[in-house]
């Protein structure tokens, strides 16, 4: 098995783990961690394809993904802290007001 296929497989598995985690976990912080897992899977695919094609554009995209991920985590955790202040819970099932 080539390193290329191996890296792609790892990236796909990381993304899948992230999806499953988002579906299964109820702790909002852990759900966020699973989103990070998905982003890491995508980043790994970017770098792998970048190597395969001999260009560096994929690595540039990884930078942008990382920057946006940092911003997203900061805002997401701020939202979680605010929700916790108001409801004293970080269970994602407790925040369903918009569904009704």
């Amino acid at each position, binding site marked *: 098995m080539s390193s290329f296929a191996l890296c792609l497989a790892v990236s796909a598995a*990381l993304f*899948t783990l992230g999806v499953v985690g988002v579906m299964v976990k109820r702790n909002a912080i852990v759900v966020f961690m699973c989103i990070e897992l998905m982003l890491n899977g995508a980043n790994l695919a970017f770098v792998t394809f970048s190597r395969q094609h001999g260009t560096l554009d994929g*690595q540039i995209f990884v930078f942008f993904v990382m920057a946006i991920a940092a911003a997203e985590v900061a805002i997401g955790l701020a939202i*979680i802290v605010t929700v916790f202040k108001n409801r004293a819970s970080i269970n994602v099932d407790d925040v369903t007001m918009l569904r009704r």
Partner: protein
Amino acid sequence: METLLYLVFGLAALVGGVLVIVNRNPVYSALSLVLTMFAVSALYVLQQAYFVAAVQLVVYAGAIVVLFLFVIMLLNLGESDNLPAASGARRFVGALLGVTFAGIIGALVWEYASTAGVAAGAATDAGHTKHLARLLFKNYLLPFEIVSLVLLAALVGVIVLIRTRGSGLDASEADHV
């Protein structure tokens, strides 16, 4: 030898990812996330993306996970506030979705990897970071600047979100008005 390293670090990344989901204590989940970040960074190094690997360590393992741990400790979450386990239906849907996803992506990877030839890469070995910088500051200058604006907006947004009503800033504003 190299394939062995790929295997070891790929496996470490997956083990870290599984532990993130399996652990009940969010602190342990965050630490497992560090394991995944390190392993992915090692995979970047193996693929000669040295600068991306360094940034991965600094930004993810250094900043983002610390932010997670910070919030976990700020909210004082531990094993003590045990959330009830996910319902059976949700677990089933999650597992089903996971299997479907893994199947689709695995099939795509298999298809692509079997048709793609030997890696054409390794064309940009010397002065790697210099090439990267040239690309970033020439071809991708506008997105780069936009990202800086996004980060600034996130910074301001977080401060506005976190600020409580009765804080000192609001009180002094009320005095002036």
